[in-house]
């Protein structure tokens, strides 16, 4: 289910391998630019291929990395607001903690995207996806302070972390690239920890702490 195993995909895999190491090949498939084939190189049989020492990336790996970058890009400006909107040290600590893990994971995501040969631009720029704070919500946050800020922040943070854990879990199950799967495991672990901290600060309505996804 998770790989694209049609004959054309196999051709594309071959095109990527050839384009990566050969020039002037008579095979017309070799003229395919690597960037046009990267998300389709889903065949696990290519482990150890010359496309990279850590194995190939699947379409799922690349889609998850792109979405993870896009979600982190959207969350960081929210966390930057925290010191100016609340003096509560517990909330400031939480924001610092969440920001640290997100910056670290964002760096890893960008490096992996670069390794994948896929586009490193954010394909979801300006797109409101599940778990992402919207421009209107960010405006509301900017005009709130104290407990009303904390309440809004808790809602957005919970939505973000819940969605991040949900899709990272899917990447763990459906991904192919070992380094990307390892990052997804870290996102799930960090997300669960952050959600537990958030639940202690601001318990969710009628939900037991830590039941994120």
């Amino acid at each position, binding site marked *: *289910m*998770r*790989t*694209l*195993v*049609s004959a*054309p*995909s196999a051709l*594309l895999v071959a095109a990527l391998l050839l384009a990566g190491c050969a020039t002037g090949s008579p095979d017309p498939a070799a003229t*395919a630019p690597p*960037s*046009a*084939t*990267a*998300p*389709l190189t889903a065949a696990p049989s290519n482990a150890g291929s010359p496309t990279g020492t850590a194995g190939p990336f*699947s*379409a*799922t790996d*690349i*889609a*998850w990395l792109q*979405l993870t970058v896009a979600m982190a890009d959207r969350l960081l400006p929210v966390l930057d607001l925290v010191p100016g909107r609340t003096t509560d040290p517990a909330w400031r600590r939480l924001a610092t903690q969440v920001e640290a893990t997100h910056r670290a994971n964002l760096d890893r995501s960008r490096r992996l995207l670069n390794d994948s040969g*896929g*586009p490193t631009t954010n*394909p*979801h*720029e*300006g*797109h*409101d*996806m*599940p778990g992402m704070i919207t421009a209107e919500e960010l405006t509301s946050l900017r005009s709130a302070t104290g407990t009303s800020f904390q309440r809004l922040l808790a809602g957005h943070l919970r939505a973000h972390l819940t*969605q991040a854990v*949900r*899709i990272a879990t*899917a*990447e763990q*199950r*459906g*991904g192919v690239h070992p380094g990307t799967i390892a990052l997804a495991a870290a996102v799930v672990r960090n997300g669960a920890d952050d959600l537990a901290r958030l639940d202690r600060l601001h318990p969710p309505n009628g939900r037991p702490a830590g039941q994120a996804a």
Partner: protein
Amino acid sequence: MDRAAPLSGIPRRLRLATAIGALLALLGTYVFATTTRADADPGVNVIRVAEFPADCTYSHRLPDDPIIFPGLPGASHMHSFFGSTVTNAHTTLPDLVSSPTTCNPRTDVSSYWVPTLYNNNVPVEPTIVTFYYLGEGVRADVVAATQPIPQGLRIVAGNAKAAGPNESIARWSCLHAGQVPPSKNFVTCPAGTMMESYLDFPQCWNGRDLDSPDHKSHMAYPVNQACPSTHPVHVPKLRQVLRYPVNGNPALFRLASGPGYTMHGDFFNAWPVAEMARRVQDCIRPVIKCGHDGRPI
């Protein structure tokens, strides 16, 4: 009197010209009908429009997108799916080929999906859903050289991230209310009519990739009535037409992706190769309007 003769002569010449014109028209009709019969079943007066349709009613909703977010259930905004009844985040071509479908004809097991429309936060599904496959927007010789859409090809149309009407190719209008000007955003349709969405997919293929990293660059729209050299293979143009059972003030309408101008469509082709090829051969290339069975109407 000098001018009388010419004046009286003009009507005579006009009558003569009209008679000759009528003869030519008759002759033209004969040649036209003969040509038509040569292309299709003998004795059938076909309609000279390159078209075959699939009507695919609503199947299901999921926050999934097997093109943009393959393998990542829940990663997308809410989509409404038409055609294949099995599509989810994990769907690949073999899943579609063996799947049930909501389409007429039943042979179309392709998957089509769009962002869900909400009215006051209640999902609304279109009750009339037609996917037209067309040979139009390019020169006649390009239509005549149309190739079948390859099985497994994925095409996206529209701009889910459009920040305004200028970044959109969406088209909203009213069924049975042509006086309402079409718009890239939702329109106010009169009582008793339906709001409808038109979306044209790109019809020029690079001849090589069934998908691309941005899910767009393997396809292109025609330029100057022909396919650009980067995307030389002309395939039928998919036109998605959705009729929603809503009208009136659109203030409470929204798509899962945002305002009306964020309308987009995704297509995952799973037509049986022979059925697609037959329709291209019998309907698109000879410019004949076909029904759901792929036979001339």
